[in-house]
């Protein structure tokens, strides 16, 4: 088996006295689609936020695409230079629960911004790609609109296009449909489902949409109290969970 693209080794993350991840171990293969589920506060979003370098961690080792998050000489809370963090981030993209589009920029500008500023892409080339991405998420007609003129579902689809414009190898979804009205969830899941067929793209998805998790992921991980309690291929996981804690959680969300 090839080396995993993501490797957490005994990672411990604390917020003050609260331990969010406790000797956490977790590997993800390139191209794998992994869903993280579990009660709130169980550490699943923290895993994504650490990967995106939005949160530092205190102990253990984390590697992404062969890059270790901590540098031997690294200083500061991230124990790495800004340059090193920049290198790590160039492999990762993230889609947030609250979309976080830039409100002062048009939809097109939101997507073009980073490729031009960070990848030093020519503006017309970046716009050409942005148009392709907008067509993919079905929002080409909204390219000159501003985020406030779009519905939540449309904003989230733009946010996905924006993340994809940076060509990440790993794409993180942090509860992408939790802030949406129920009738808008489908259109966002539709876009994510389309991405699930991208062979090389590694996806980590934190979600409460169990049916969707079952449908798109190669593996489902159940989190509780900073550890993965149970994980497995979705058919087996949902039809025959082994741990009592998993069964309890699943019955509460599926019947709740």
């Amino acid at each position, binding site marked *: 088996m090839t080396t995993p693209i993501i490797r957490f080794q005994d990672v411990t993350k604390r917020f003050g006295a609260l331990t969010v991840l406790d000797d956490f171990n977790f590997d993800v293969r390139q191209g794998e689609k992994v869903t993280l589920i579990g009660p709130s506060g169980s550490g699943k979003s923290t895993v994504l936020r650490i990967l*995106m370098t*939005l949160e530092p961690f205190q102990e253990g080792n984390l590697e992404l695409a062969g890059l270790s998050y901590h540098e031997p000489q690294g200083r500061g809370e991230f124990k790495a230079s800004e340059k090193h963090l920049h290198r790590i981030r160039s492999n990762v993209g*993230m889609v*947030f629960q609250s979309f*976080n589009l*830039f*409100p*002062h920029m048009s939809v097109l500008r939101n997507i073009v*911004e980073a490729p031009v500023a*960070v990848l030093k892409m020519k503006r017309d080339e970046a716009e050409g790609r942005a148009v392709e991405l907008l067509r993919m998420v079905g929002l080409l007609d909204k390219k000159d609109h501003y985020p406030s003129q779009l519905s939540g579902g449309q904003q989230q689809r733009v946010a996905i296009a924006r993340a994809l414009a940076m060509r990440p190898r790993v794409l993180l979804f942090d509860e992408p449909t939790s802030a949406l009205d129920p009738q808008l969830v489908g259109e966002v899941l539709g876009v994510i489902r389309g991405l699930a067929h991208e062979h090389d793209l590694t996806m980590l998805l934190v979600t409460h949409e169990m049916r969707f998790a079952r449908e798109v992921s190669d593996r489902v991980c159940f989190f509780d109290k900073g550890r993965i309690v149970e994980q497995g291929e979705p058919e087996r996981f949902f039809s025959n969970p082994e741990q009592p804690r998993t069964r309890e959680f699943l019955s509460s969300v599926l019947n709740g």
Partner: protein
Amino acid sequence: MMYGYEWDTTTTLSFALSILPILGIGLLVTLQAAAVGYAIALVLGLVLALLRRSRFKAISWTVACFTEFVRDTPLLVQLFFLYYVLPDFGIILPAFMTGALALGLQYSAYTSEVYRGGINAVPRGQWEAATALNLTRLQTYRDIVVPQMIPRIVPALGNYLVSMLKETPVLSVVTVLDMLGLANMIGERTFDYLVPLSMVGLIFLPMTLICSALIHLVERALPKSGIPLR
């Protein structure tokens, strides 16, 4: 006579009208001082606000102490200090530049607090999105944070413009011939202070009113979500 204009003290009205051209010259100086001072305050204030957020404690502390010190000491004292003490260190500036600099310094301490509040008001999600897109710190400020804070800080910055405009007469104490300085000289020569000083007050009133109205217009014209700088 001053600047070639004679005054006519026969009646109050003729006196008031005859010194208008002289005060007009002073008004120009007043406006210039306010413009230069405000430009310094806008730029330096932003620099101070950004430096105060530096990750290097030495920098952020020095800047915090500096702004607190400037904010909490009187403008007049700072002005005298710059005018009388700087030359001891070989820095000799014209009275006008000293005055504009003093105004700019004092108000940059105020505006830096406005900028700081504006930066803090940009939601965390915007910073996180910028990080996720791998923007550098500089790019994040330039393209995401500053454009979004502009509409939020315009009202407060506008208030400081009006306030600074009203404070420019202090420059007359370091021999700057602004409106107040000239009105004073006219008073000394004609032994009539009432008319020239009243005129100065009367000229200030429409200026500050116009200024406030302009700021209000700008405020309403700006898109609430922010203005891209590039």
